[in-house]
C-alpha cells in the first residue's frame, strides 16, 4: 500500500483563487490590446500611480512581475541573452534585462506582436510607460532604455527618499507630501492629455478606498503570522503579494479574496495549525526569492524551516490615520510616502539605526516575529536589493544576536543560484541558529 507523500509546506487553499486572479490579468491585458484599449507597462509603484490608471480604465501590466513569471517558467534565458546582444551590460537588473530582451524581440522580430514563446500569454505592446523614482534606479532607467524600441510616452512617479534623521522632521514630511501631490496632478494631466479623457474623481476615490481596504486586510493577515507556530509560509506570501502591490482587475473581487485569505489564516491561528509540519526554526527572508528555484523552500520546510516574514518593501503599508484627508491624491501620496520610505523612521532613529529605508525594518521584524534567523538573498544583478544586506547582517547580530545566512543568487538568472551549495549551507546554519537561541537567552533577549 503506497502512502502519498505529504507536502512539506501546508499551503493555504484561499491562495489559489488569488493566484488565478493575478494570472487572469495577463490574459485580460492582452485581450484589451486586441480590442484597441490602452495598456500601461508600470513599475510596481505601491499604488501611487496604479489607482489613477485604474480610475482612467487604463489596464496595467507589470514587467517586474512578468520577469518573475518568465523565471519561474524557465523562459527567461533567451530574453536575458537577447538583452546582452543589444549592448546592455550583463550586471544589470534581471527583471530589466528580461524585459528589454523581450521588448527587442517583440519589436524587432515580431512586428510589435507578442513573441509566440512568451509565457502566460505575454505582455502586449504598451500605450504608455509608468516608471517610478522610488526603490531603485532601474525603476526609471530601465523604462527610459525601452525608448530604443517603443514609442510609448513615459512618466516617472517621483518619490522623495530623505535620510532617517532628516525625514523625521514634520516640515520635511509635509513638503515631500506636497511635492508628491503636485507630481500626481501633473501625472493626471499627462494621462488625460495622452488619452484625451478626463479622470473620474469619484471613481478614483472609490479605487483608493478599495486599495486601502485590500492593504488593511493583507496587513492584518501578515500580523497573524506572528503566532507560534506561524500559519502562513512565505511561499503563500509571494504568491499573493502581487494582488496588493500591483492592483489590477476587479478590486472588489480581489478584496473578497483577500478577506477569505485572512479568515483562513485566522482559523489556523485559532487552531494552532502550522504552515510546516514541525516548526523548528522561524526564519525571515530578505529580498526577492529565486523565482526559478522556489522548491528550495520546500526542501527547507522538510527540515522544519518556517519562513514567517519577508522583505518589508513588499508588505503593505502600515495603516495610517487619514480621517481628515479628503483629497484623493493626497491620500495616495501619504500612503505611499509613509509606506515606502518613512514608516519605520521613528523607531530607526530611536535605535540610532540610520538605515531606515530598507535596513531597519528587518530588526523590527526579527523582534516582532521572534525569528531564529534570517536568510538574506543578495541578488547579483540588483544593487538596490543587495547593497544593504551586509549591513543588515551585521546589525541583526550586534543588536539582537540573530544569525543570518547569506545565499547569493538572482531573481531571474538561474545560473547565478547554486541550489546544492545553498542546501549544504542551510544545514550547517541550523547549528548556528541553535547556538544563538542560547546566546539570546543568556543576553536576556526575549526569545
Amino acid at each position, binding site marked *: 500500500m503506497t502512502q502519498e507523500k505529504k507536502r512539506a509546506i501546508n499551503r493555504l487553499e484561499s491562495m489559489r483563487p488569488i493566484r488565478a486572479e493575478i494570472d487572469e490579468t495577463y490574459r485580460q491585458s492582452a485581450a484589451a490590446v486586441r480590442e484597441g484599449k490602452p495598456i500601461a507597462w508600470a513599475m510596481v509603484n505601491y499604488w501611487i500611480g496604479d489607482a489613477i490608471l485604474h480610475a482612467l480604465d487604463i489596464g496595467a501590466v507589470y514587467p517586474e512581475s512578468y520577469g518573475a513569471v518568465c523565471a519561474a517558467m524557465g523562459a527567461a534565458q533567451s530574453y536575458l541573452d537577447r538583452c546582452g546582444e543589444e549592448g546592455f551590460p550583463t*550586471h544589470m537588473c534581471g527583471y530589466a534585462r528580461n524585459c528589454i530582451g523581450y521588448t527587442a524581440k517583440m519589436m524587432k522580430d515580431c512586428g510589435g506582436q507578442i513573441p509566440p514563446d512568451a509565457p502566460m500569454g505575454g505582455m502586449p505592446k504598451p500605450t504608455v510607460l509608468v516608471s517610478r523614482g522610488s526603490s531603485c534606479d*532601474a525603476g526609471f532607467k530601465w523604462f527610459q532604455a525601452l*525608448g*530604443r524600441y517603443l514609442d510609448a510616452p*513615459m512618466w516617472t512617479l517621483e518619490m522623495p*527618499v530623505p535620510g532617517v534623521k532628516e525625514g523625521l522632521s514634520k516640515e520635511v514630511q509635509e513638503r515631500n507630501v506636497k511635492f508628491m501631490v503636485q507630481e500626481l496632478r501633473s501625472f493626471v494631466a499627462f494621462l488625460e492629455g495622452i488619452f484625451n479623457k478626463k479622470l473620474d474623481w469619484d471613481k478614483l476615490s472609490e479605487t483608493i478606498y478599495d486599495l486601502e481596504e485590500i492593504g488593511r486586510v493583507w496587513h492584518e493577515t501578515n500580523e497573524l503570522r506572528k503566532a507560534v507556530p506561524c500559519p502562513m509560509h512565505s511561499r503563500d506570501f509571494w504568491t499573493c503579494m502581487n494582488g496588493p502591490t500591483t492592483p489590477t482587475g476587479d478590486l472588489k473581487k480581489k478584496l473578497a479574496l483577500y478577506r477569505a485569505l485572512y479568515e483562513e489564516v485566522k482559523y489556523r491561528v485559532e487552531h494552532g495549525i502550522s504552515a510546516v509540519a514541525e516548526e523548528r526554526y522561524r526564519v525571515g527572508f530578505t529580498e526577492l526569492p529565486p523565482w526559478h528555484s522556489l522548491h528550495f523552500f520546500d526542501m527547507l520546510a522538510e527540515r522544519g524551516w518556517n519562513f514567517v516574514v519577508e522583505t518589508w518593501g513588499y508588505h503593505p503599508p502600515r495603516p495610517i490615520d487619514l480621517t481628515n484627508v479628503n483629497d484623493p491624491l493626497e491620500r495616495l501620496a501619504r500612503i505611499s510616502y509613509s509606506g515606502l520610505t518613512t514608516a519605520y523612521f521613528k523607531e530607526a532613529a530611536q535605535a540610532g539605526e540610520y538605515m531606515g529605508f530598507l535596513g531597519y525594518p528587518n530588526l523590527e521584524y526579527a523582534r516582532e516575529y521572534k525569528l531564529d534567523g534570517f536568510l538574506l538573498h543578495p541578488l547579483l544583478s540588483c*544593487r538596490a536589493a543587495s547593497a544593504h544586506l*551586509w549591513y543588515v547582517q*551585521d546589525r541583526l547580530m550586534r543588536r539582537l544576536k540573530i544569525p543570518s545566512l547569506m545565499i547569493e543568487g538572482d531573481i531571474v538568472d538561474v545560473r547565478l543560484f547554486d541550489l546544492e551549495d545553498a542546501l549544504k549551507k542551510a544545514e550547517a546554519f541550523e547549528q548556528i541558529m541553535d547556538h544563538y537561541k542560547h546566546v539570546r537567552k543568556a543576553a536576556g533577549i526575549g526569545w
Partner: protein
Amino acid sequence: MLEDTLVIAEKTKAFDKVKELNQERTVRVKQLKAAGKKIIGYLCLHPVLEMLTAFDLVPFRVLGDMGERVTRADTCMPPMVCPFLRSCLDLALKDKYAFLDGVVMAHICDVGERMAHIWRTYKEYNYFYFMDVPHTVHPPALDAFKEEIKGFQSSLESFVGEKLRVEKLEEAIELHNEQRKLIRELYDLRKPAPPLITGSEVLQVIIALASIPVDEGNELLRRLITEVHERRPRLPEKKARLMIWGSVVDNVSLIEMMEGVGASVVMDDLCLGTRAYWESVEMTPDPLDGLAYRYLVGIRCPRTLRETALYRNKKDYAADLEHRFGYLRSYIREWNVKGVILQSVKYCDTHGYEVPAVKDYLQKLGVPSIYLEHDYSYGSLAPLRTRVQAFLEILK
C-alpha cells in the same frame, strides 16, 4: 602657519602644486584645519558647494583609492556594488577621512544613498547631512529640490551657529562660477592640435581643485593657465583625439594608459570633469533658485531623468537622444573628437542603462565609440589597453 603655506605656494610652479596635491590630497586641508577651519567632506556632484563656502567651511570631495584593497567595507557592503563607492566607504572605515569635521551626501544613486546611511551608522561626525535629490527635472521637482537646499542651509546654520547672509552666498556663487569659467578656459587649451595640456594632466588639476578651498583653486588655475600657455616644447601631435564618457574616474592611470598608446584625451563627460564645472549658477534674485536649477538640471549625470517633449503623444527616439545627449555634439565638434571611449566601473547601473543610447547617438553623429568596463583596480587596466589599441586602429 596658514600664511607661510600660501607664500610657499606662490613660489611653487602651479603644476608642481597640482602634483603635490595628487600625491597627498589632504595636505592643504589639514593645514587649514590646524588653523581653525572646518573641513566638510562631500560625495559626488549634488551637494551644493556654494553653501559650504558661504559658511566659510572648506569642501573636500570624497574620493576612493584604486591602490588600496577594500577590507573593512567588506563587513557592511557587498562586492557586487560600485567599487568606487565601496572604496570610499572603506577609506572612511579605516579612518582615512577622520580629519573631516562633517560630511554631506546626497541621493545620487541607489548605492550612494545606501552607502551614505551605512557611513553615518559606523562613523560619527559633528555634522552629517543627507540631501534627497529628485529623479526628474519636472517643475515641482525643481521646487522640491530648492526646499531641500533650504533644509541643507538650516542644518549648516545650526552647525555653525549663525544665520546665512545672502551676500555671503552670492559671493560664494561668484567664486565657484569663477572656477567654472577658469576650468572652461583650461579645457580650451585642449582644442589645438596638439593640445597644450594632456587629459591626464587635466584630471590631476581637477583632483587638486577638489582638495582645496575654491579661492585657492581659482588662484592655482590662473597661474596654471598662464604656465600652460608658456609651455615649451609643445606636446607631440597624436592623431587619435578622444573623448572619454562615463562613470567616475578619480585616478589618472586609465587616461594615462590611453594616452600612452597613442591617443590624446582632449575632452570628457565625467564627474571629475565637465559635469562638475560646465554649467554655472545663474544669479537669480533668490540665489537658491539658481542653485537649485544648476544642481538638478545643469549637472548632466545619468542619475537624473530628462525626457524630450512628445510628438503627437508619441516618443521620438531620435529627438530623445538629441535632448539627452545634444551637448556631446558641441564637445565633439569644438574639440575635434575622432572617437569616444565609453567607460564605467562595473555595477554602475545608471551608466549601464545609458550605454546603448549614447552609442546610438554617437553612431548618428558618425563618431566611432567603444564601451569599456572595469573594476576600479590597476589590474583591470591591462586587458583594457589591448581594447583601446584595437579601437585606435579602427580610427586610423
